């Protein structure tokens, strides 16, 4: 009986275990090795020690610019979408009418394909005949050349990304619904103002979720690819202007690996990304225990 059970365990868990070994662990270790080599797919990898890392961190003309683009994006898009999603969730958590319909409308855009939604936004932001600049013109403002300018291209992507705040909002909403009403009743009996209730009841109770959304937001923005790639191939390629101003980290890694076949450099970039995500996840674990309020 026992032996049979073990046999069936491996039959059932077999595919996933094989997938883990051959599609995750093996490739992971191999890419770690490749990050210390010069490798172009055609010729076998040549060991270069820390050469790739040294090159990326000190001499590569696009590495730091792409880090900067990614961090600026994170710096603006994350706080904005956190505030938007928490505020919307709080408004939806009242006795509002059409609650279900409103929730649907706010949530839906976050699930739509980033490729298609980026293209809609690129059209709306088109400097000459896009909807936005035409509307601005009506009220007497000459809109900036959004997608065609190296100054405005990144803000355009930030605004585009805010359209998808609904995912975070749903998570906040679930958290808000879990806060016991009695806490607010007790607070208001003690004479707490609305702001104090928000500060001491809502925010304290929701802090684990706030923190989760923050960390997921950071990780998500480090991994931005679809929007950057769409922007890169459509808006940028045809108009040329914004160039490196929208070269996100993963897009840079992709181009190095699959356009120029510097696979060693690509692997090194992938591992630095992994390291950053690992550190963030560990911080998340430690901080969640320390600062965040839990029962």
């Amino acid at each position, binding site marked *: 009986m026992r032996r049979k059970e073990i046999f069936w*365990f491996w039959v059932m868990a077999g595919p996933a*275990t094989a997938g883990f070994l051959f599609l995750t662990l093996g*490739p992971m270790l*191999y890419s770690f090795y490749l990050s210390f080599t010069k490798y172009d797919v055609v010729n076998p990898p040549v060991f270069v020690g820390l050469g790739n890392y040294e090159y990326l961190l000190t001499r590569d003309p696009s590495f730091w610019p792409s880090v900067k683009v990614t961090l600026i994006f994170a710096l603006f898009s994350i706080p904005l979408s956190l505030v938007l999603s928490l505020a919307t969730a709080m408004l939806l958590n*009242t006795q*509002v009418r059409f609650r279900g319909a409103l929730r649907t409308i706010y949530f839906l855009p976050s699930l739509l394909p980033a490729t298609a939604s980026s293209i809609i*936004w690129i059209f709306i932001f088109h400097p000459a*005949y896009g909807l936005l600049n035409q509307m601005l013109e009506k009220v007497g403002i000459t809109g900036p050349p959004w997608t065609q300018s190296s100054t405005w291209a990144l803000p355009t992507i930030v605004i585009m990304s805010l359209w998808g705040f609904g995912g975070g909002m749903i998570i906040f909403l679930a958290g808000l619904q879990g806060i016991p009403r009695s806490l607010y009743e007790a607070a208001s009996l003690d004479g707490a103002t609305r702001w104090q209730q928000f500060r001491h009841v809502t925010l304290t109770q929701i802090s684990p979720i706030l923190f989760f*959304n923050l960390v997921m937001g950071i990780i998500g923005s480090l991994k931005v690819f679809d929007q950057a790639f769409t922007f890169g191939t459509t808006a940028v390629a045809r108009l040329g202007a914004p160039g490196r101003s929208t070269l996100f980290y993963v897009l840079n890694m992709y181009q190095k690996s699959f356009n120029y076949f510097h696979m060693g450099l690509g692997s090194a970039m992938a591992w630095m990304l992994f390291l950053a995500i690992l550190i963030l996840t560990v911080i998340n674990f430690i901080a969640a225990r320390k600062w965040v309020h839990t029962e």
Partner: protein
Amino acid sequence: MPGDFTPCGMVAVHAVLLLGALLMLTPLAWMLLTSLKSYQELFVSPPKWIPEKLLWHNYVEALTTFNFALYLRNTAFLTFVTIAGTLVSSCMAAYAFAALRCRGKGMLFAILISTLMLPPQVTIIPLFKVYARLNWIDTYLPLTIPAWLGTNVFAIFLLRQFFLTVPRDYCESARIDGASEFQILLRIFVPMCTPAILTISVFSFIGAWNDLWGPVIFLHSECYYTMAIGLLNFVLLSNQPQGAPWNLIMAVSTVMMIPIIIVFFLAQKRFIEGMSLTGLKG
């Protein structure tokens, strides 16, 4: 509590939420309306919201002249195979981890779950090398085989949580009645956990349908294109002197979004549950 507003306050809450909803819907409305315009109407200033005549023909043109019917079929096929693989492999793995005993099981599960953190960029280059060696580049194998090998770790995790709630006695008595492990999984666990299975189906549907990273790296031939790369390629190549045929581009975008919107409305509860579960786990 903050949920209790004065009547006046409630009016303001409604106003803000409705205005916000209008803003959220504007891009979609603009996409839909633009997709029905004629080419000349695209560039008029000030912009016209409602087209003179609703040109449904744009959709026919996009689907036939520009081959999007093929890309649509390709994407549907890939998505279907991915969902099927994810369901089969994650049900099996979740069953093993929830209902069967084996030494080192806890450790294996922990290691599997830890790969949730791993960004796909880390493994992509070696995978590309292996797939190239196997002559799998420019086929659907690199995009579908991983799903059949349980690489959707989140699905395994979620299903195991649900499978753990199935009483142990059910398995024991089924085994005494001579049921095989596959029968127990299919006849007892799967029916008792349909909500979780639906949640996983809709999330892997979204993941596969929207995927750009995989197709961009592994597919080259036009006949294998998915909607996502087909759309990008179309925008890239449709450079006309006056401006791109945005009406057709928007028609294609609409076609790409409709299945997601339909599935979303059919299974909205599953999405909300799934999202809430990810959040509360953290």
